[in-house]
Structures are given as structure tokens and as C-alpha cells.
């Protein structure tokens, strides 16, 4: 059990809802992995029933909604989208995503700070999708965010943790804050690694929805995230540059026998040489 913005959750796995083969597979993935927080977006809809149908599926599930501002390129667009999301999803949670570069979908740090300030003042709980930049994190924390969501690597790239040093630095610098890895995770082992670093949760989408069996992959991530967290809580050993035997050395059978045998053998050789 962990606490996020005053709410208790069992799962530390946050799942995106995009790109699944069917709504049924999405639903099964959510249920099989026991995720409790899912992300979604707002989009223009050809027919209003299209959005309504998706919303009806989500509303039936025992999950908390984290709407995003995906695709926004300006503060204005993101703030307006947040306003609309608050009304539709009836939550003040918003995953603030303001894209600064279309090639790698890297978030715009300057717009992110500006948008965060506006939305915090309006009573939103901002989940800022950000790079792993320490100074940016400090600016956001100074504004009053209670959560940071650094990327592991670009959205949908599946490259995993490309800068573990920066992620560790963020964790060490903000021990009291909720830190959630968002984007770039490709494998369950990478999610486990993030959790072993002490991250509070992992948000991902593509690695599950684009797998051959999304509900099975969602379960795999769920278990990896649980395992990684337990590993962190148990306290990982320090890495060393040398070997230390894990089996006790004292009482090792044949201890020194080899040396003694070598000595005996050498004596015999010496005697042989002395023999005329």
C-alpha cells in the first residue's frame, strides 16, 4: 500500500490506455495487472458516441483516472485541455505534457514550468511529464508540485533507462516526493530496475499495448514492479569491484591439501635431482 495525493493504492503500476488491439484487450490488461491508475486523453471525435463508448468502458473499471494533455505544444493548449479534462473526468489530476520537439517528443521544460504554475494556482494536482533534468525538477518543486514524472527515455521508444545517473540523482535529491517514471520503458526488467532505485511507481503504455499478448505483458510488468519495490525496501547490497565468496571459507574440505601436495611433489623432484 502506498499513498499518492492522499489516496491509498496497492499497485505502483500506472497504465496507459492507447494502442490496444481492442477495448476488450485493454480491459483485460487493466484487470489482469490490477492497475489502479490509468491515463487517457481528450480528442476530437467524429461521432460523439465514439468517445462515449470508450468512456463507458473505463467508468466500469475500478481505476482512478489520470487524464493527459498529450499532443499539446503550447501552455495555452495544455491549460485549456486540462480545464476540459477536469470537467469530463471529474478529477483535478492532470498529467501535464507539453511537447517541445516532434522528433523525440521531448517535453518543453520552459512551457512545463509555466503551465504547472498556472494549473497549480487553479487547484490542479499536476503530474509533470518531464526530462530527468535536476534543475527543472527543482523549479517544479519550488512551484509546489507533489509528484515528478521524469522520462526513462523518449515516449514509445522502449529504450529503457537511458540515464540512470540522472534518475538516481532525482531520487536522492527529493526523497519525500512521489517520483514516477513515465515513458520509455520497454521491458519488465527495466521497470524493476527503476523501482529498485526507489521510484514510487512506473507509468507506461506502449510496452504493454504493442506486445503480442498485452494482458500477459501487463501482468509481467505488474510483477516486475512489485518485485523491484520489494528489492528496494529490502535494501540492496552495495556493488563491489571484487569478488567475495558467498560460501564460508572456514571449514572448506581439502583446505591447504593442494599446497601440501605441491610441497611433497617438489621434495620428490628435488630428491630425484640429487640422486646420482
Amino acid at each position: 500500500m502506498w499513498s499518492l495525493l492522499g489516496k491509498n493504492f496497492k499497485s505502483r503500476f500506472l497504465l496507459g490506455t492507447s494502442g490496444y488491439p481492442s477495448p476488450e484487450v485493454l480491459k483485460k490488461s487493466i484487470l489482469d495487472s490490477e492497475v489502479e491508475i490509468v491515463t487517457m486523453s481528450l480528442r476530437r471525435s467524429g461521432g460523439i458516441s465514439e468517445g462515449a463508448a470508450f468512456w463507458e468502458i473505463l467508468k466500469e473499471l475500478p481505476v482512478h483516472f489520470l487524464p493527459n494533455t498529450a499532443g499539446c505544444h503550447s501552455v495555452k493548449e495544455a491549460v485549456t485541455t486540462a480545464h476540459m479534462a477536469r470537467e469530463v473526468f471529474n478529477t483535478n489530476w492532470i498529467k501535464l505534457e507539453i511537447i517541445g520537439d516532434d522528433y523525440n517528443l521531448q517535453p518543453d521544460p520552459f512551457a512545463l514550468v509555466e503551465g504547472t504554475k498556472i494549473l497549480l494556482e487553479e487547484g490542479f494536482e499536476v503530474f509533470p511529464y518531464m526530462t530527468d533534468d535536476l534543475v527543472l525538477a527543482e523549479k517544479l518543486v519550488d512551484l509546489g508540485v507533489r509528484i515528478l514524472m521524469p522520462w526513462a527515455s523518449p515516449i514509445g521508444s522502449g529504450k529503457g533507462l537511458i540515464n540512470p545517473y540522472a534518475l538516481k540523482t532525482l531520487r536522492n535529491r527529493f526523497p519525500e516526493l512521489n517520483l514516477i517514471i513515465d515513458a520509455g520503458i520497454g521491458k519488465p526488467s527495466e521497470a524493476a530496475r527503476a523501482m529498485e532505485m526507489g521510484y514510487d511507481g512506473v507509468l507506461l503504455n506502449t510496452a504493454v499495448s504493442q506486445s503480442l499478448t498485452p494482458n500477459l505483458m501487463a501482468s509481467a510488468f505488474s510483477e516486475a514492479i512489485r518485485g523491484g519495490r520489494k528489492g528496494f525496501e529490502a535494501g540492496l547490497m552495495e556493488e563491489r569491484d571484487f569478488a567475495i565468496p558467498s560460501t564460508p571459507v572456514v571449514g572448506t574440505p581439502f583446505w591447504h591439501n593442494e599446497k601440501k601436495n605441491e610441497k611433497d611433489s617438489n621434495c620428490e623432484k628435488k630428491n630425484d635431482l640429487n640422486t646420482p
Partner: protein
Amino acid sequence: MKVVINGKEKVFEEEVNTLLNILSLFGKNGDYFAVAINSDFVPRYKYESQKITEGDVIEIVTPHPGG
């Protein structure tokens, strides 16, 4: 009256003074969509009083999958 709805130009022959008029013409009711006019959010309680003027750019959005 000519307005732009979700990126497409629409011409209304009938009288469409308010946002509620337009939403009604499209059969849009319920709580599963939100509206912005000229990039500003229009809360649900203002649909009836929100005046529409020539050239307004209206966005109507609904829940969709997202990551």
C-alpha cells in the same frame, strides 16, 4: 453563420445564437464531452448563455485512449 467545428468549416442556415443551439443540432448532450471556443474552455453551465459569433473556432472533445 459560418463557424469552424473540430477543424472543419460549418455553415448554419438556421439561427444558432448560443453554444447550446449548436450542440443540440449535433445531438450532443451528456457529460462525456467538453468544449472550447477560440481556445478557451467553456464550462458546461455556460452552454446556454455562451454566444456564438461568426468565425468562432469550436473544439468539441471526448475521452479517448491515451498514455
